[in-house]
């Protein structure tokens, strides 16, 4: 597993170095009003929603599934909390709104789990339903408007600082929690087992339905938290654009991190690296001033390069490294 993380690490280092060359102050950190600022902090902060969603996606993919609805779920979370908060500036209202939003997200996750585990629908189709319908639900909640709020407690989630941006702290907390829960309990092993061989797992007595249900709920809750961050950061809920295409970034992050779309073994560290690469890439595009019209091409090239060096065929071609570095 450690070996598989080498290439993502190299890619990340290369991107960071490129930024350093273009912007010598990129690595500089400064403390202002008890908060940490700098290029690296920005990368982490802007990457927090993607990382969160990618964590949920990792577990879903490990069970041979995929969740396309996370972007829409993120939009719903933002919409529900902002509509609930309205013009209020009370922390209580903000927390109630966020709790409502996350509860709804958990329900949406149950729905996905029901379609996949209960009805046996292919995950890509099952979650496509909510991917398209979810934006509609968010539009209904916001009545088609961009809902703006002015709530200081709510603003903390996406834009606040406790030395580091709160968004970073939340996503790292979730990362730690997932790592702890999946690796300290048997959940991780059972998820992998279901992903590698569902039938063998069933015959060994694994409750694969429950496991699959769990990961979809978890993915939806992660998406909900990410949605709250996105909306809190701009103090507004935009049903159309919040979390747009973020499912693609999340899937990419998982794949770059070395978790196979065929399910089975997964790597949370890999997903963390993947999410950082995606975000650094986006940042790099701005810092080195890539023309907007070729931004996507530039991103695609980097992603393809990282995926290629991880492909079995390419690795076989590069296997002369194995001689020098026995694993």
């Amino acid at each position, binding site marked *: 597993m450690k070996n598989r993380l080498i290439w993502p690490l190299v890619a990340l280092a290369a991107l960071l170095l490129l930024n350093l060359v273009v912007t010598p102050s990129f690595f500089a950190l400064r403390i202002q009003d008890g908060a940490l600022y700098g290029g690296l902090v920005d990368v982490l902060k802007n990457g927090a929603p993607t990382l969160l969603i990618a964590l949920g996606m990792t577990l879903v993919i490990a069970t041979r599934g995929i969740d396309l609805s996370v972007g829409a779920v993120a939009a719903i979370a933002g919409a529900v909390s902002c509509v609930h908060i309205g013009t209020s500036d009370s922390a209580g209202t903000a927390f109630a709104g966020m709790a409502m939003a996350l509860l709804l997200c958990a329900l949406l996750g149950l729905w996905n789990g029901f379609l996949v585990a209960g009805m046996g629908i292919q995950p890509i189709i099952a979650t496509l339903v909510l991917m398209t319908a979810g934006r509609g639900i968010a539009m209904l909640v916001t009545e088609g408007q961009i809902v703006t709020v002015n709530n200081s407690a709510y603003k903390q989630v996406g834009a606040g600082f406790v030395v580091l941006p709160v968004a970073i702290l939340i996503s790292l907390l979730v990362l730690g929690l997932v790592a702890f829960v999946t690796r300290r309990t048997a*959940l991780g092993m059972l998820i992998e087992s279901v992903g*590698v061989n569902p039938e063998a797992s069933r015959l060994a007595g694994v409750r694969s339905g429950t496991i699959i249900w769990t990961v979809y709920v978890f993915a939806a809750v992660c998406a909900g938290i990410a949605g709250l961050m996105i909306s809190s950061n701009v103090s507004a809920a935009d049903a159309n654009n919040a979390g747009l295409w973020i499912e693609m970034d999340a899937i990419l992050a998982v794949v770059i991190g070395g978790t196979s779309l065929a399910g089975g073994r997964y790597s949370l560290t890999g997903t963390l690296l993947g999410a950082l690469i995606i975000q650094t890439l986006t940042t790099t595009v701005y810092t080195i001033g890539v023309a907007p019209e070729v931004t996507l091409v530039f991103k695609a090239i980097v992603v393809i390069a990282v995926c290629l060096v991880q492909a079995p065929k390419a690795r076989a071609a590069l296997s002369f490294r194995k001689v020098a570095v026995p694993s």
Partner: protein
Amino acid sequence: MTESPPPVVQMRGISLAFPGVKALQDVDFRLFPGEVHALMGENGAGKSTLIKTLTGVHRPDSGQVSLAGADVAFSSPGEAQHAGISTVYQEVNLCANLTVAENILLGREPRRFGGVDFSAMRKRAAEVLARIGVHIDPASSLGEHPIAVQQLVAIARAIAVDCRVLVLDEPTSSLDAGEVAELFRIMRVLRDEGVAILFVSHFLDQVYEISDRMTVLRNGTLVGEHLTAEVDRRTLIAQMIGRDLGALEAIEDAAEKRKTGGPVLVQASGLGRKGAIEPFDLEIRAGEVVGLAGLLGSGRTELARLLFGADRADSGKVLVDGAPLRLRGPRSAIAAGIAFSSEDRKGEGLVADLSIRDNLVLAMQAARGWTRPLSRRTKDQLVEKYLKALDIRPANPDALVRTLSGGNQQKVLLARWLVTEPRLLILDEPTRGIDIGAKAQIQQLVTALAAEGTAVLFISAELEEVVRIADRIVVLRDRRKIAELDGSVTGVDEVVELIAGGAAPEPEKVVS
């Protein structure tokens, strides 16, 4: 069968090895024009490998294939087909959404002005269908027709090219009696036209009805070639199943020493599932090894899966310790102390990409639920114990199960269930495809377990093994339990007799 013309296919000294398995060893095979030739053998005997060697899917490591007297070495099924060898596989490999005519001529459509000439195509397809006496509209879409007709269309596709050799791999497994008769009629038409037909089927009645000659394989070696009329069922089955006495250590002593008067542990009455196995009664006592004997497709595995709840029974009930057990799935069986080691190690047994450790504790962990993980120490103790007890190699708990040999994989699967300390252990073909040493170890383990009071249901295609190891033998034929024999006094011959169904002709078999 007077003096025959020279064989159209001749294979000499064919050997082929896959990693860890010798699939074929020095096999000779000949196929004459105008005959239906049955290829016989149990699972893993090398039938499919031989067919795939003939049709260019595999290249033999050594040996020579010749077609109509000329040496050939096909590197793809396409080349073989071009040379006149067409194959129809068990599963219908056609496109249900295309028309019958398109399916028959897919890839070789008549062309006109750079496009497909549909009217010529329909005409050509109709000719082919008429040749085998199938009267369906070539323009109708294939999916509208029942599986049996689709199978016939597959044959039409196979003979639409100039076909000298037609390979039919289990063509009857999803057909009913009438459809089988229709298929046989077509096979006879083609045979009389001079096509050499290679036929694989597990149904002895069908083999005896249609074939002129047969070749028997066992464990990748040629056992014999006979004219069908000259070999009776008993001899055939004995050849297929093998009787390599004395190849393994003496296990029978242990079986004698055991007393089998334990209390009844599991009792099935009227348990059955439509299309899988007819309702049967079965009692298994603690400390007893019950053997299941029968040919492939006789319902051995199906019976085991019902007992374990892997499939739902539609009739009957299971009692454990005299109390009814609601078998809603494997979990309820496991909770009642029943374990099932599947014959399909890779597909239904092991989780190949996980480590030995994870595979060993999987069933126990699953029973506990994910919130109550086994501690690292417990796991290590269990793993160490079973790695040693079963002599699993490499003895590295972190090795991925995928990398182990077949015998060691089987032991890991066994160990997974032993960890749960089952009261009834169902072993489906636990010794298939593994080397002789591991085989003896597993057999000894089974007797040792029984001596400790575990009930074992032992399924194996190798009759010798079943007879040697079992206290009681349940014989299955055609998805029915037909007899129960006392293992200590039964010989292989007696079981073979039962499986063969005596000399009396069986009623026409209906499969579906």
